[in-house]
Each structure stands twice: as structure tokens, then as C-alpha cells.
């Protein structure tokens, strides 16, 4: 068995996203080819947590540029309502609200060759303060965009370092490859952690396969010490799917609440990990 790669040698997770974004007047757009290990196994559907990463990046950039300061995410919801027909996606973020302290960005996910989206996301971002003291580093984001796509040889959750620590609980330690521009765990990565907690807890409960099709994530505070520990609780489960409630705490900081999320799943035939 080989030793795991030290996390400081791993590419930043955003380099796996093939995230070619452009800024425009009132909206940001992007094109991305979603590689296999970012998708639901055996499917073209990006994981809900991965869609959250795209939305958090694109909408977050747009809001940060608007504020001229970093713009931490207050909340983010993802809704998947159709199966994608291609791994090549077009993303467009636009402002729903452009306020002085809070902006709301909507991101539509559309497959190449189609005009209607298969998923949408909405996120609120908050300005952090005085641009003179904490300016948003757009050039850094552009340099990262210019890097070639880093291909994954394992699922994104494993690469991130998410590990199960119980039947309903998963953890993720802060590391350079999973943090955001202000040095804390990226909002999209926390969404993926919530998704993992949901899937792990449901697999333990009923042994069926589940695909997360809806995420409603509230960012309450940043995990500063870590690891971030996510625990999922099934609220309802039937043949069609489930609702799952997830709490993420900073396990290294007295279990301080950090994230609160609801996940909606659809049941798929077969065991956990089956295709959508």
C-alpha cells in the first residue's frame, strides 16, 4: 500500500474543475468539462457539492469584484432538476441583488448544445469590510484560471481528505488544497462535506443508493481549527428519496457550529455509489 500524497503537494481543488471563467458586464460566465471523479459514479451528473464549488467560485468572484473585497458565502442552495446530457457545461452567474453589504448571485448550469439549464444555484455573499484593508485579489484568481486542468485519479471526496469517522459522520481537515482565498475551508468544499455526511448516514440507514439533488447550505462561521465534522440525520426516507439534515462543527474548537444544511436525495437502484 502506497503512502498518501502529502496534502501540501496536492493541486488546489479548483484546478480539477477545468474552470474557464470570464467576467462580463453584470454576469460572469464559464465553461467546464466535468471530469469523471467529480461526478456521481456512472453518471454525467456532477455531484451536488461539485456544483456548489462551481457556483461558489463563479458567483463569489462576481460578488467579490462587485464589492472589491473578498465576499464570504452566507448561504448557498443547489437544485438539480434534470439529468445532464454532456459533461461539458456552460455556467452563467448573474446578480439577483447587488447591495452594499450583501449580494445575491444566481448560477445556471446548462449542458453544451442545450439552452435550458439542468441545475441552478443561488448564493448570498457578504462584503468583508473596507476594500483598502482587504482587497479581493482578482489577479490571483486569473493566474489560477490559467493553470492546466489537474486530472483526478480518485473521487474528489477522497482527494479532499474527507473520511468517515462513524456511521453518520465524516470529517475534513483544513489543508492548502481545500481552502479559499481567506484561508478557511472553501464553501463548496463544505457543501461536499455535507453531501458526504448525508450519503454516509443514509447508506448506513437503508443500504440503498442515494443521489443528492438538492442542497441548502447555511454558513454560520468558518472552521478555523479543524477538522470540520459533519453529521447527517435522515428526517424522512421513502421510495422516492429522502430529506437529510446535516450539522458541521469545528471539532477542534469545542464543536462550534459552522454549517447547517438540508439535503434532498433521490433513490437510485442498487447499493450506495450507484449511478443517477
Amino acid at each position, binding site marked *: 500500500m502506497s503512502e498518501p500524497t502529502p496534502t501540501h503537494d496536492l493541486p488546489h481543488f479548483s484546478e480539477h474543475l477545468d474552470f474557464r471563467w470570464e467576467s462580463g458586464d453584470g454576469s460572469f460566465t464559464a465553461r467546464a468539462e466535468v471530469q469523471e471523479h467529480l461526478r456521481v459514479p456512472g453518471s454525467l451528473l456532477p455531484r451536488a457539492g461539485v456544483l456548489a464549488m462551481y457556483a461558489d467560485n463563479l458567483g463569489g468572484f462576481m460578488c467579490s469584484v462587485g464589492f472589491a473585497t473578498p465576499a464570504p458565502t452566507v448561504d448557498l442552495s443547489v437544485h438539480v432538476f434534470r439529468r445532464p446530457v454532456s459533461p461539458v457545461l456552460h455556467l452563467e452567474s448573474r446578480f*439577483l441583488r447587488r447591495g452594499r*453589504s450583501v449580494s445575491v448571485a444566481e448560477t445556471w448550469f446548462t449542458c453544451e448544445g442545450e439552452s435550458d439549464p439542468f441545475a441552478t444555484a443561488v448564493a448570498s455573499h457578504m462584503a468583508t469590510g473596507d476594500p483598502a484593508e482587504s482587497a479581493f485579489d482578482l489577479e490571483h484568481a486569473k493566474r489560477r484560471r490559467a493553470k492546466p486542468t489537474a486530472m483526478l485519479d480518485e473521487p474528489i471526496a477522497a482527494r479532499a481528505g474527507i473520511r468517515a469517522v462513524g456511521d453518520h459522520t465524516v470529517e475534513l481537515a483544513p489543508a492548502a488544497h481545500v481552502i479559499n482565498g481567506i484561508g478557511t475551508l472553501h464553501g463548496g468544499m463544505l457543501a461536499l462535506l455535507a453531501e458526504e455526511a448525508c450519503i454516509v448516514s443514509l447508506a448506513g440507514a437503508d443500504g440503498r443508493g442515494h443521489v443528492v439533488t438538492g442542497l*441548502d447550505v447555511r454558513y454560520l462561521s468558518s472552521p478555523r481549527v479543524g477538522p470540520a465534522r459533519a453529521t447527517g440525520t435522515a428526517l424522512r426516507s421513502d421510495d422516492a428519496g429522502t430529506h437529510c439534515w446535516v450539522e458541521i462543527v469545528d471539532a477542534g474548537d469545542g464543536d462550534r457550529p459552522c454549517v447547517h444544511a438540508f439535503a434532498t436525495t433521490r433513490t437510485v437502484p442498487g447499493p450506495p455509489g450507484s449511478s443517477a
Partner: protein
Amino acid sequence: MTAATAPPHFLTHFAISWELDAAGMTGGATLDPQLCLPGSSTPRAAALAVLADNAAGYVGAFALDEIAPTIDLSLHVFRTPSAPTVAYKCRPLRRGRRVAVLETWFTTPGHAEPWAVSVATFLGTGRPDPVIHVMPTADEPPFTPASELDEPLDRRLGITVLAPGVLGLPRRDHVSNGRGTVQGGIVALLIERACESALADARDPGGGPIGDAQVVTGLDVRYLGAVRRGPARAEASVLRDDDGGSHLWVTVVDAGDDDRLVAHAFVTTRSTP
């Protein structure tokens, strides 16, 4: 001829009772039959949103020291209650300097397991609002006495169907919040009715009653501005509709203020037998 009497505040039709303490709010309500789904005792999702916005608004006001506007509210109904009497608990998830996030769990009285959950975010302005608002106390409970909704829901609210999936709602005092604008839950109710209209038309174009065999089970509403002039106009678009349920996207504008965007929502429905 007698002068028209102003209708009682809309929240009196919920027969609300609650207690506030340091941990949040514990409440109960018995919904007027017209706030339930047609022909059933199941509360409408938006009726729960009205309760959640009210409860979280008060708890959030204590957290932020001001009556703060709702910036978003999501509601997830994952089991079907069979009675119009509900119990709820609201607690803060985050008490920031400017932002408060509140969670409200809905249960059947006497039972601990929730059947619906709402999460809402409130944003403090840092500026006292000119609208004077008195916080209710146990001696002066809110929205009392409870009153019967003695005319159809749409008529009482002034909801009009402008086109399939497009509905209007005037701004009136009896649907206002502590800031004098349309209460967030009422905006959610307009959104729910617009979805019902859009789905009814999608399945039976040009006909069929509003309120098809679809039940709203998920609301994700972003409040982008206040309805200051009115009427509010909601327009629902069906994103996907199949045997299991549907997803819709809804925009709400202040039609009296140059169609300024005031809310945006995603709505999920499930088919009923």
C-alpha cells in the same frame, strides 16, 4: 351604505400563541381551513412560511436589536401533517453583528419529530427603522383575537390571476410586516399560488382550477427588495414536471415601482394521489 371595514391582520387567521425566551420561541397555531390545501387539513407550505417568517423575525429582532428584513427563507416539508394545528420551535443558528440565521421546526403537538423545517436569514441595517413596532408580550399576545377567514383566500388577499402562472397581490396593511411592507411569508404565499396556476395550466392549458394535484414541499425564497408600492406580481415558470413532481422558478416584482425585482424563488412540488 356602510364604510368598508379594514380586514384584521392576516396573521389573526393562524390563531398564534407563543412564548419567547433566551433560547428562541416556542409556538403553536391552528390554521384557518382556507390556509390548508383544498379539501384537506394539511397546511399549505406557504402558510408555514408565514409562521416561520413571523417567528424567526421576532427571534431575529432580539438577536440583532432591530426589526430586520428577511433576506432568504427556505422551507422543507418532508412528511404530510394531517391536522391544521401545528407546534413550532424557532432558535437562532447564528447571531452575528449584521446577520442572524434562524431555524424553525414544525411538529405535531405532543410529538417531537419534525415534519417540516424552515431556515431564514435576516440582515440588520444598523439603522433604526422609522416604523414604530411594539414587541408583543405574554400580556399582550400578538395578532389576537384569532379570527375566521370569512371569504376566499384569494379575495381576502386581493390575489388576481393575470395570466396562467402570473398573479398579482396589492400591498395592504393587513398583510404587512413590522417594517410596513408585505410580509415575507405572504410573498411566499403569492409564489405558491403562482406555481399552482402554472402547473394547472401546464397540465390542462387554458382550463382547470388553480390547485392541481400538486403539493408544494419545498420553497427557497430570496428576498431581494421590499414591496413598497405594489402590487406585487409573481410569474412562475415550470423547469421540470413529471409524474413524481415538479420544479419551478418564480420571480416577483413590484409592479408599481417599475417592475423592480423583489423576490426570486425555487419551488419543489410532489404529486398527490
